[in-house]
């Protein structure tokens, strides 16, 4: 099992690619199959997009720090930001069974995060650093 890895980037959308490469490599090292790797990449991409867009209210307002920690049976990704605290209970998550023609825009990012990961914990902080803990379990042993 490989070690904990950290990446810190400035909150620009153009860094989403770097973030994706970072978590993709970590998920592969943690023995995940390509479906699981893709799921982790997508959940993290959605979460970081939300941090830039909503927590910071735009690009270039703060940093995003990611920590990848292999677990005995999966991978934990923790994402830190210093933006506005966020309580997910207050926003409606997309219902994918609602007809696509009449959906209100938005809500899709959180839907994917919850749907793709096995554990999702927003830990807002009014003083300092928000944390989002994401855990993906492996289906198969590496």
């Amino acid at each position, binding site marked *: 099992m490989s070690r904990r890895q950290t990446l810190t980037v400035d909150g*620009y*959308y*153009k*860094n*989403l*690619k770097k973030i*994706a490469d970072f978590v993709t490599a970590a998920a592969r090292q943690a023995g995940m199959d390509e479906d699981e790797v*893709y799921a982790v*990449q*997508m959940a993290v*991409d*959605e979460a970081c*997009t939300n941090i*830039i*867009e909503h927590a910071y209210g735009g690009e270039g307002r703060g940093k995003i720090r990611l920590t990848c920690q292999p677990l005995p049976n999966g991978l934990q990704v923790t994402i830190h930001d210093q933006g506005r605290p966020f309580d997910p209970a207050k926003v409606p998550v*997309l219902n*994918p*069974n*609602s*007809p*696509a*023609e009449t*959906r209100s*825009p*938005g809500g*899709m*990012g959180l*839907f*994917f995060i919850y*749907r793709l990961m096995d554990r999702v914990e927003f830990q807002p902080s009014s003083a300092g650093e928000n944390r989002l803990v994401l855990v993906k379990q492996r289906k198969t042993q590496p």
Partner: protein
Amino acid sequence: MEVTHKQLRRCDLVTVSGRIDAATVKQLSDVLSEIKNAGRYNIVLNMKNVTYISSAGLSELIDTQNTCKQLNRGELVLAEVPDRIMDVLKLAGLTSLFKIFTTETEAVGYF
């Protein structure tokens, strides 16, 4: 990400490759807007070489479809959608919103 665009007689063919995320989606939406602003609403989007699409990309597709379908003036259809991207469309319940063709030819030939 790369976006190319070719105007055909009955529809516009847009080919997008690479990652469609919050950073790159603007490039795609610029091309789609240009087409819609020209009063053209029959669009084929070839996704053959798309490696990733986030909700930002999906929102752009939904918006474009809604604009195109207004007043029955047209439609956005998808072609050569990779399995991975198809899974994402299914997960989000979007497969009924788009006609999806296996080949680009069938998609263009639909219009």
